[in-house]
């Protein structure tokens, strides 16, 4: 989901991730991947995941190309054809990531609304004025036995003003930016925490972000969200790795601990000193283990911070005991990432606020 300025008392960025329909078995609630204790490697950013028994499986498309339809309905300022073109450009942006293999195919216009359960992946506008902070959302139907995404539907809320102007347009949201975010979800990516927000009267505003998958959108007229960042690129490569992903990138792994105990849900950031890019990840198990994959080889600075208290729901199921009571800090060693390998044993010892 992509939110506008989120109200401080109800950040609901993951609500649509929970709208999973069963395929053959019981309905499960999709949460972001808590794969640290499972067989699927948990890496940078967050991946959508589902529990199968005691395992957590990353949600992903098992077949390419992803065939999608576009609802043949525009909104003020954007025709359905312009919507389809913006969606196509957004798919192309993800497909251009060299370390990932994804593909898509526009299957045609449809009169159907984006609605899970009809067997078709549909992207379109819907008027949802009751979702007064939601610009768009993605829902899934998955095979609960394998984690394969069978269908994903994206709606853009036509209760908001939209634009596809090349340079953006004042007082309207940039459709391509939001489409790029939602199509990231469609591929199986959850939210990135690489951004800063501030509380304002009536909501939380993004100050800055360094990932398209950050849950809160830039302001109207801003088109910065059309460009994938290092964090997004690492994430898509992790889910759909090309040969170059395992050959040319590396990882940092370790633990976040407080008083000798693991910290769950700590946001760990790796800063590449050569490319000056940021890739984030989370400690995703009770022992505080984290892995940040898809990093360019070379020296990195590692930093850990808690999630903002108003943001936890954007990333994790609230039933989890996410620890946000610790101070941000740096790791006191420069961590060097090898090409095609990993640097392990990075222990970040944090202290309570």
């Amino acid at each position: 989901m992509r939110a506008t300025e989120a109200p401080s008392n109800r950040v609901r960025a993951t609500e649509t991730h929970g709208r999973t329909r069963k395929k053959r078995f019981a309905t499960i609630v999709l949460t972001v991947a808590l794969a640290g204790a499972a067989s699927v490697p948990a890496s940078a950013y967050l991946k959508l995941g589902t529990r199968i028994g005691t395992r957590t499986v990353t949600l992903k498309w098992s077949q390419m190309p992803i065939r999608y339809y576009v609802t043949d309905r525009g909104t003020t300022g954007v025709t359905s054809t312009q919507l389809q073109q913006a969606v196509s450009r957004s798919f192309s942006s993800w497909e251009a990531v060299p370390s990932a293999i994804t593909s898509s195919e526009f299957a045609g216009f449809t009169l159907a609304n984006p609605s899970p359960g009809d067997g078709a992946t549909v992207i379109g506008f819907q008027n949802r004025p009751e979702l007064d902070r939601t610009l768009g959302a993605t829902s899934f139907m998955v095979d609960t036995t394998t984690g394969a995404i069978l269908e994903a539907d994206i709606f853009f809320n036509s209760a908001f003003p939209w634009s596809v102007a090349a340079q953006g347009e004042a007082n309207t949201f940039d459709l391509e930016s939001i489409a790029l975010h939602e199509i990231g979800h469609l591929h199986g990516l959850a939210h990135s925490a690489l951004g800063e927000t501030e509380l304002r009267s009536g909501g939380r505003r993004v100050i800055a972000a360094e990932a398209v998958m950050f849950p809160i959108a830039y302001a109207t007229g801003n088109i910065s969200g059309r460009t994938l960042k290092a964090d997004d690129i690492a994430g898509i490569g992790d889910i759909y790795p090309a040969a170059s992903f395992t050959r040319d990138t590396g990882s940092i792994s370790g633990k976040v601990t407080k008083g000798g105990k693991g910290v769950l849900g700590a946001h760990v950031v790796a800063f590449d000193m050569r490319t000056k890019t940021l890739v984030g990840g989370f400690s995703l198990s009770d022992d505080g283990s984290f892995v940040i994959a898809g990093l360019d080889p070379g020296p990195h600075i590692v930093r850990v911070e808690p999630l903002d208290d108003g943001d936890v729901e954007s990333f994790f199921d609230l039933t989890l005991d996410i620890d946000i009571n610790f101070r941000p800090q740096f790791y006191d060693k420069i961590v060097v990432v090898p090409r095609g390998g990993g640097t392990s044993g990075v222990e970040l010892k944090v202290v309570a606020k």
Partner: protein
Amino acid sequence: MRLSRAVLFLALAWGACPNVATAQIYIGRSVPHAGTVEVSGGGTFSGGYDLGSISADETRNTGTGSGPFVLFTATSRTKPALGLQGRLGVFVAQSASLEAGIQLARPILSSLLSGDAESAPDVTATETLTRLVVDGSLVLHLSGLSFAGGKGVPFVLGGGGYIRELHEKNEVIETGREYHAGAGLHLWFGQGKHRLGLRTDVGVSVRNGGADFSETKHTIPTAGISLAYLF
């Protein structure tokens, strides 16, 4: 030939009077000459250099200020390092030699992390590098400026080399190049055909590449002191 006769005469005299002649001074072909070899080994110093300041930036939202949002800043430096060196030189003329050298050092790369947007305490993150420099030099021996009866011989040198730096755990190798120029002094303990002596030199080395993520050239001071053997 006059020189041959002199050599023959001295050889005969030495053979006839073994208890008198101590042969401290080699008199024959002047030493060094083309084909003379010098080996040396000792310590080296290479200066530190700044790697500059970089910031971890995030893309700002409209209306929240100008320029990128700086999450934190890293100001980095490679510290000076002592190391070991070995050299092998071959004289191509009486006053010129070609030299190959190898230097090994373990400089520390440090980065001061500061200005955190969420007030993380400042930290200096470090890493120890293993630096290997393989170089080649042309050495000009200034015999005309020699002193102490020819035992002290200044020289100048210049050349280039290859830098190979390994990060901690030796898993990542970075390579680069260096060019150097300098001057030094041989202080031989004797004047025989085989000589032991001290070699000292100072200079500058222009380097790029290696573990230097700033991707700029750096000029650093260098110095060395070695025990040298000429034969």
